[in-house]
């Protein structure tokens, strides 16, 4: 097996590719005038929805993807909305199938990409975010960066085994290029941008 490794490394050495200096670090990408507006536009193109609300009582201010009072199974990473149903008492990851809403906190949003950077606090939280019908992601209004260049300056790879950018709900256009939301994962994504 390590024969394969040594062989491959030897072949790569033998290819004698010219060594090219690393590119000079990119000049900072041009800034943008109104990052929140950019974020909203890109997110809407991706089939998501952006809502601004007050951090203190956003759950009462926003428009919910479902009638909030009728939701039986909800997983929430934020104490302001308590989990219920399966979100509370599923004992295995797979039992989360049937979850109606999953609420996550994102670390920051990337305006140019219409995306948020999120690190699930546990593997189960990631499963919940994938199996739920509707996803709500909460991010602080002060935490909007312009581009992915700025984003990667903030991401510490050693912090966790997994992290993701999320941009709108799960989607496909594999049948005649017509866009369908909710290919495998959530059918909707609401990004709640909270002000102090």
């Amino acid at each position: 097996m390590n024969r394969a490794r040594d062989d491959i490394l030897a072949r790569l050495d033998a290819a004698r590719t010219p060594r090219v200096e690393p590119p000079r670090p990119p000049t900072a990408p041009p800034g943008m005038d109104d990052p929140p507006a950019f974020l909203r536009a890109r997110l809407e193109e991706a089939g998501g929805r952006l809502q601004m609300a007050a951090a203190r009582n956003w759950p009462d201010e926003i428009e919910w993807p479902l009638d909030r009072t009728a939701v039986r199974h909800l997983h929430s990473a934020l104490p302001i909305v308590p989990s219920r149903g399966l979100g509370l008492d599923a004992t295995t990851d797979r039992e989360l199938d049937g979850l109606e809403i999953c609420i996550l906190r994102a670390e920051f949003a990337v305006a140019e990409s219409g995306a948020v950077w999120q690190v699930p606090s546990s593997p189960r939280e990631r499963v919940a975010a994938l199996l739920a019908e509707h996803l709500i992601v909460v991010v602080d209004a002060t935490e909007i960066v312009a581009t992915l260049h700025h984003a990667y300056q903030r991401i510490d790879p050693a912090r966790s085994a997994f992290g993701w950018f999320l941009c709108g709900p799960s989607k496909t256009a594999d049948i005649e290029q017509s866009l369908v939301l909710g290919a495998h994962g959530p059918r909707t994504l609401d990004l709640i941008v909270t002000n102090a």
Partner: protein
Amino acid sequence: MGHVERAARFVADPERTRWHDEALWHVRTRRDAAARLVPDWEDLREQAAAIKRHALGRLPELWQAFETNASRAGTIVHWARDAREHNEIVYRLLQERGIRRVVKSKSMLTEECGLNPHLGKRGIEIVDTDLGERIVQLRREAPSHIVMPAIHLRRREIGELFEREMGGPKGIDDPEALTALARRDLRARFLAAEAGLTGVNFAVAETGGFVVVTNEGNADLGTALPDLHIASVGLEKILPKQGDLAPFLRLLARSATGQAMTAYTSHFRGPRPPSPAAPPDRPGSDGRRDPELHIVIVDNGRSRLLGTPAFREALACIRCGACLNTCPVYRRSGGHSYEATIPGPIGSVLETARDSRTHAELPFACSLCGSCSEVCPVRIPLHRQLLAFRESISSDDPHRRLRRWGLDLLGRVMLRPAHYERLGRWGRAFARRLPGTWLEGLLGPWTRHRSLPTLPSRSFRELHRERVKARAAREDGR
């Protein structure tokens, strides 16, 4: 059968051809619109190309650093010289754990290696979970596009397929309803899967991590539930630093579909921590095994390509598909006409570089319009590479002697105006007696839909002489 004959089968359905052409062109225009919104787009392309040039110049160091950092994070690293070794490694990992049900998200590499048939023959059920890939898997076909695998099919055909394979209602052809049907069918398979296989879009040497992007979330569902995740990565996919991801991710989705970003851009680095064990009395109790993450680094001809300076640049490809969408030949001939894992301009380059005998025709499935090189986010000079292939293929053309002889003859005639004129006269007289379609198919497929214009009865020189004579006569008469 060559590319031309296979393309002929595709265009036999003009309605499908027109739709295919227009749908892909629409994707191309969406790409343009998305690129225009990025003020530093051209800088980004240059940056991405420079990072790739740099990375391809030091693959051994980068992969060794990757191996060290990945192992430190708990990822198990495997190396495969070719497709067979790759398939055996994957099979062994599954077999050792008694795994029979596997879900896979899109990976052109496993397609190239023929992983599905390899596992299928050994009794492992492997389900492609990207909707387009699932469709072609159920039809026992190859994908016809690297980003949109089922772009050659119409909704009606997919409806009939789902009716048969998923018990869908008769006459179903609404994309919403079809997707819902597939979602239900695949959700059950995700929940039952014992291992998830994925490709890799970018590996990062500095962190030992890697990134997988999807719009459907299938790579995530496929790896979040099972305890075993095996990722397959080609040697060319490595980037030195985490920050290098930024230019590539800003380019990739915009080039591919015109989206700002894919819905899921997942960063893996090491196996996930085990989920809390379920009480033993619960059905589907997970947590039996600690989650494992394996990565298989595959050569399969890449190191050879790296050693060929003319085609090294093709290894920078990030598989966005933009060159396919823009290519006038691809759009009108369909992906299957290339009979190659990767179709379109980049496929013609890669496949011909791999095996120039089998694919000798592909460099000619090109109008040299250069549109592919224009859209390529990593600035691969695709059309110039295809031209270079043409030259090297033509130089060992069996008809070379004949061609030489013909050109010699032509040269001799052109040097003697009298011969030239006489031959021209005979030729015109002769050709006018032939049926208008005499050229058809005579000189291979190129002449099949072409005919010569009707030849005039007199040559330019003759006409000119007559005019001069007539004018002289008029002037004399005055």
